[in-house]
């Protein structure tokens, strides 16, 4: 029979017992993003999305009865640093799963290490085709490839007035830029659209006048711009200065958010291929999930337009959590196997993985949704 003292002790112990599940070691999830350097804006947005997802997951009891802990490493917009960051996460922090690494160049640099250490990685942004076709069974990409993006865009050609007849390219000179140029070239060329001039720029370049002046001389009516947020902003501003006089479509899902507060002069409308349009969450495939993500982001007071990329980190974390649940334990090989069974409703839409690449060594590739947002005088619209 319980006496008063036993009851009191039991009462005191209750909060500790109820916390027992969360007192367990957290499950560590490693992420590497470009938090500084040439494409830092995007990397920070993606990292913020992942942080929100970790909070949402922990608020609803964590995963496998344990809290999740996001361990973030800066890859400094540099492939060499990306490899060092991934090795640090795997070897020192002992994470059983990675998320990364924004640019295709950084992701491709890390990929041999995934094979070496046998750790799966959710690729949240990179679009180069060979990430999932080179035979790396530790890679699971939730982002669309450049080809998927180009094919989806080709279906929207009828929405452009005047019609797109000839295209040119201004692309960052890396795997991301070259890959997008090649795939848009092929997808739109197959629709009978003529191909004009291609200009490239280094990721650090700030003065793009020579490239834009050269493109101005071509008779293309539309220029596809493939690079990070910073160079998108510079290119759009310098295109006005050089009177480019052509429609500009940005690819890759990044949005030049600083042009909302500092708009281009009237009469300049740009088009942006995005995978989440936060101005219109009700139009997302799963509005409730998109609205929750958007609300949590806004509650933090972060840059609104960062939502366009932050969802990548958010969806990647939800994907990892779902795989952990299916695996039943935070072990790399079990997570890799479980990722093939994931079926999840994310901000961008349904997430699941189809096999790509050589038989027996397949990577996972999701089929995400694509939308085109217009930007004119600091205001956005949905095409």
């Amino acid at each position: 029979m319980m006496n008063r003292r036993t009851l009191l002790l039991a009462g005191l112990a209750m909060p500790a017992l109820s916390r027992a599940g969360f007192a367990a070691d957290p499950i560590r999830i490693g992420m590497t993003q470009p938090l500084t350097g040439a494409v830092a804006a995007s990397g920070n947005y993606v990292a913020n999305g992942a942080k929100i997802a970790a909070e949402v997951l922990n608020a609803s009891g964590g995963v496998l009865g344990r809290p999740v802990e996001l361990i973030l490493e800066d890859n400094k917009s540099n492939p060499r640093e990306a490899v060092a960051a991934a090795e640090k996460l795997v070897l020192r922090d002992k994470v059983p799963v990675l998320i990364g690494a924004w640019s295709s160049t950084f992701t491709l640099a890390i990929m041999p290490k995934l094979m070496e250490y046998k750790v799966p990685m959710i690729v949240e942004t990179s679009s180069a085709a060979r990430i999932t076709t080179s035979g790396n069974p530790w890679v699971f990409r939730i982002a669309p490839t450049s080809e998927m993006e180009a094919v989806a865009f080709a279906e929207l050609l009828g929405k452009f007035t005047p019609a797109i007849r000839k295209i040119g390219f201004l692309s960052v000179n890396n795997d991301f830029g070259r890959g997008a140029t090649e795939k848009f070239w092929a997808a739109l060329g197959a629709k009978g659209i003529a191909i004009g001039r291609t200009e490239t720029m280094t990721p650090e370049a700030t003065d793009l006048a020579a490239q834009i002046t050269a493109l101005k001389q071509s008779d293309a009516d539309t220029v596809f711009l493939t690079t990070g947020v910073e160079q998108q902003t510079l290119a759009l501003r310098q295109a006005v200065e050089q009177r480019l006089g052509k429609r500009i479509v940005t690819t890759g899902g990044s949005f030049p958010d600083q042009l909302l507060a500092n708009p281009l002069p009237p009469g300049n409308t740009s088009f942006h291929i995005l995978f989440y349009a936060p101005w219109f969450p009700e139009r997302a495939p799963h509005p409730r999930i998109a609205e929750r993500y958007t609300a949590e982001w806004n509650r933090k007071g972060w840059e609104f337009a960062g939502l366009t990329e932050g969802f990548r980190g958010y969806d990647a974390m939800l994907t990892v959590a779902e795989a952990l649940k299916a695996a039943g334990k935070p072990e790399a090989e079990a997570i890799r196997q479980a990722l093939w069974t994931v079926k999840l409703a994310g901000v961008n839409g349904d997430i699941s993985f189809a096999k790509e690449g050589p038989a027996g060594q397949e990577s996972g590739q999701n089929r995400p949704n694509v939308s085109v947002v217009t930007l004119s005088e600091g205001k956005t619209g949905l095409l």
Partner: protein
Amino acid sequence: MDQALQHLVNGTVLGGTYALLGIGLTLVFGVMRVVNFTHGELYAFGAYMTYAAVSLLGLDFYLSLALATLLGMALGAAIEFLLLRPMRRADIDSTMLVMIGAALVLQNGEMWAWGGVAKLIPNPFPGTPLVVGPVSVLPLRLFVLVVSIALLLGFWLLLDRTRIGMAMRATFQDPETAALMGVRINWVNSATFAIGSGLAAAAGALLGPVFMVSPTMGDLVGLKAFAIVILGGLGSLPGATIGGFALGFVEEFAGGFVSTEYRDAFGFLLIILILALKPQGLVPAKERIG
């Protein structure tokens, strides 16, 4: 022809800013024999100070540019006093290592203070370009070119017509003799490093609103400044000016007419060619030998 005219204008605008960058670096090397690896970071510092003054404090744009330049000079004077003066008798390698360390501290300080995301600085100029025939240029870029040329001229007057300028030239030619003639070398060094830093900060303050401001913006600029100085002749002030414009034109025309993919490579190809033909650079610095 239209394209060539536009490249000419773009090259002039770019060259003016390159010259401004090069002259501060070459001045410090010429007078102090110090390879200033903090030059690019002082450029970024000028840009961030302008951003802070305009966007955070809401100060007038032109006042902010002046303030950023003065703060750049103050930071330069502090670096000279705290880091370079104690290294006066050290060899050039040790001094270089100290300056590389200082550059890393400055860049990481900027990342810590401002975060990694690039920022835009609002400016009072219209966003629509001025158009003359086939050529167009933003009023802001024109302003930057005019101020750059004014700063270059002002700097030349300072060197040529003032006592401190004369002291700097004397120290440049022969520091020992200058000291024997009563020139206060410590003071000349402080003034030189402050002015060199001020020119870098002014370039950052002017170009920050044209481009974007980020903690790593000084990396590429620092590299270009070194290229300009080597092209013009180490320690040569007219050389840095000519080198700046030469690099601007080569990058612009080769990028526009040959290949933008190798735009930066053309600049360095020019440097290799010039150094092969004139190892001392375009305009070798005059100094007493022996």
